[in-house]
């Protein structure tokens, strides 16, 4: 790949990194990452992946920007209120780095479209706010053999883990979605905006590590942090033989749309 003078400057800090270099940057430039949800996690992840020069960034989100998003969804600005989130995100990515090809999907990820959409990507980032879609992403990635980064935030806490085929998946740890309304979401319980930035940035780093093959991914480990105490803990997790999707006797063999908490559906 021939770099222009501008690109040589743009990616110079990656070129300088011994583990990345020109070869790693080329892998990043050829990489395709799908971000599910252009919200609190997807916003910082998209910005860092765009800045890094990821060749193709797909963004799927059916929502429009709301004033209540601006406290943490740093890719959307005040002037974007009422604009589809995927359009707002695409505009910022293009301004930040015109090298990036942005593919937008202004819809929800469902059992009908998931496999068709994810097939074009190397790595997925789960930036969703609800369990039905978190489980859908997990199952689609396990069934299609796609790596992804799980992320969740609430109040002052965050958790994340990375899946690659063969490692413990989200269902190995959490088996099945909690009953609707049992677990509060950010829209009900609140979240410190910077927490979203911390976690989304970790997810972006995992995507870049996966693309470049550098280091050890957060596989078979769940990273949990408590920003009130600013403590980080990694819990080793292993593949669960009782896992419904990749255990010894799988019961989930096709994608399921779990019921969404009613209050969430009413919100928009």
């Amino acid at each position, binding site marked *: 790949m021939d770099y222009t003078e501008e690109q040589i400057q743009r990616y110079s800090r990656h070129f300088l990194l011994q583990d990345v270099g020109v070869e790693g940057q080329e892998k990043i430039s050829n990489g395709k990452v799908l971000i599910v949800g252009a919200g609190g996690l997807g916003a910082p992840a998209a910005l860092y992946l765009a800045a890094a020069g990821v060749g193709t960034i797909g963004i799927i989100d059916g929502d429009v920007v709301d004033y209540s998003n601006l406290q943490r969804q740093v890719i959307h600005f005040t002037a974007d209120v009422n604009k589809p989130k995927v359009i707002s995100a695409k505009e910022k990515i293009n301004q930040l780095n015109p090298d990036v090809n942005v593919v937008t999907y202004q819809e929800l990820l469902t059992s009908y479209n998931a496999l068709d959409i994810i097939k074009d990507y190397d790595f997925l980032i789960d930036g969703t706010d609800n369990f039905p879609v978190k489980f859908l992403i997990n199952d689609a990635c396990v069934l299609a053999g796609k790596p992804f980064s799980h992320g969740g935030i609430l109040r002052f806490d965050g958790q994340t883990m990375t899946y690659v085929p063969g490692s413990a998946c989200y269902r190995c*740890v959490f088996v099945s979605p909690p009953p609707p309304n049992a677990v509060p979401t950010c829209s009900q319980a609140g979240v410190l905006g910077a927490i979203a930035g911390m976690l989304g940035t970790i997810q972006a780093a995992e995507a870049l590590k996966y693309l470049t093959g550098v280091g050890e991914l957060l596989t078979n480990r769940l990273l949990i942090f408590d920003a009130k105490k600013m403590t980080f803990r990694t819990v080793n997790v292993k593949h669960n033989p009782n896992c419904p999707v990749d255990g010894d006797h799988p019961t989930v063999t096709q994608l399921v749309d779990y019921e969404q908490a009613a209050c969430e559906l009413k919100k928009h």
Partner: protein
Amino acid sequence: MSKIIVNGQEQTIDTTSIQLLDLIKLNDVQQPDMVSIQLNGEFVLRDRYETTTINDGDELDFLYFMGGGQR
């Protein structure tokens, strides 16, 4: 008395053993549905919380569902 480790922290229990569901309550978990539990590195099925006994030296991780991120 028995000593167990919950989320990396030592806890002392007055008895020699305790049912997992009672330990969940002791740890102020309001809804057992909200927590996934690893006992000595193996996940405990949610419907076995009532029948699983925790003994001296056991290590547990309480892992909570965390949504959030998009809206």
